[in-house]
């Protein structure tokens, strides 16, 4: 077994779960499920859990669709008391983050909604990509005060 994951961070209150999976469509739902199980454990409400599930699904779709065949993609779940960070990384073809197509409702297209949906559903989204090397996306959902109190 060769999995290696630091599972440590500056802030000792944070805890990490790392996954790596084959870049294939049939594995995306496993990551979605895992993200919703973790979000539920952290204490997010149902709407937030759904948002996280969709956003994670979209990022995995991109990793798989634009990743290379017979490759893998990696997911890291970073759990703390007040937020849930999810990082998804592929070694696919990458893209120019400054000029990918944005959705235009007057001229709807079959593709180009993924990142827009992620940004709409999550509180904070960061995308880094190097053409030819791969893509990294970090998304954050903050736990609202009400759900925190409920924990």
């Amino acid at each position, binding site marked *: 077994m060769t999995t290696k994951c630091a599972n440590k961070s500056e802030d000792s209150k944070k805890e990490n779960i790392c996954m790596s999976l084959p870049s294939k*469509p*049939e594995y*995306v*739902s496993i990551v*979605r499920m895992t993200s919703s199980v973790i979000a539920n454990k952290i204490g997010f409400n149902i*709407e937030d859990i*759904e948002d996280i*599930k*969709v956003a994670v*699904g*979209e990022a*995995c*779709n991109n990793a*798989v*669709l634009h990743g290379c065949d017979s490759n893998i993609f990696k997911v890291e779940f970073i759990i703390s008391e007040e937020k849930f960070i999810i990082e998804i990384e592929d070694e696919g073809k990458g893209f120019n983050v400054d000029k990918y197509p944005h*959705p235009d*409702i007057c001229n*709807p*297209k*079959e*593709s180009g*909604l*993924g990142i*827009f*949906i992620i940004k*709409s*559903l999550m509180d904070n989204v960061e995308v880094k990509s190097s053409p030819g090397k791969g893509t990294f996306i970090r998304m954050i959902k903050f736990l609202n005060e009400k759900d925190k109190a409920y924990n």
Partner: protein
Amino acid sequence: MSLNINKAFDSEKNLWEVKLIGEIDISTANSLKEILIKLLEEKEIDIKLDCKELDYIDSTGLGVLIGILKRLKSIDKDIIIINPKPNISKLFKITGLDKIFIIK
């Protein structure tokens, strides 16, 4: 974790009634596309999608629906979406697609 699709021709209203059960995602969107295209090859009429038991849809599923809608709009036909769950309505809303699909 999978998608079931039940289809029926409503001769009274002259439309395809399609029940979506399960999840539409990157691994199932293609089979939805194939089924809807086959229906339209048989008869190019309105499609009513019953989403009562649809638990999940993402951009790959929305992309399929947009493609089919464009084809239908070009002959003045429509896609009508009924009974969407809150998470599904939300996705149509944030993407603005609630303005081009008929959602009931």
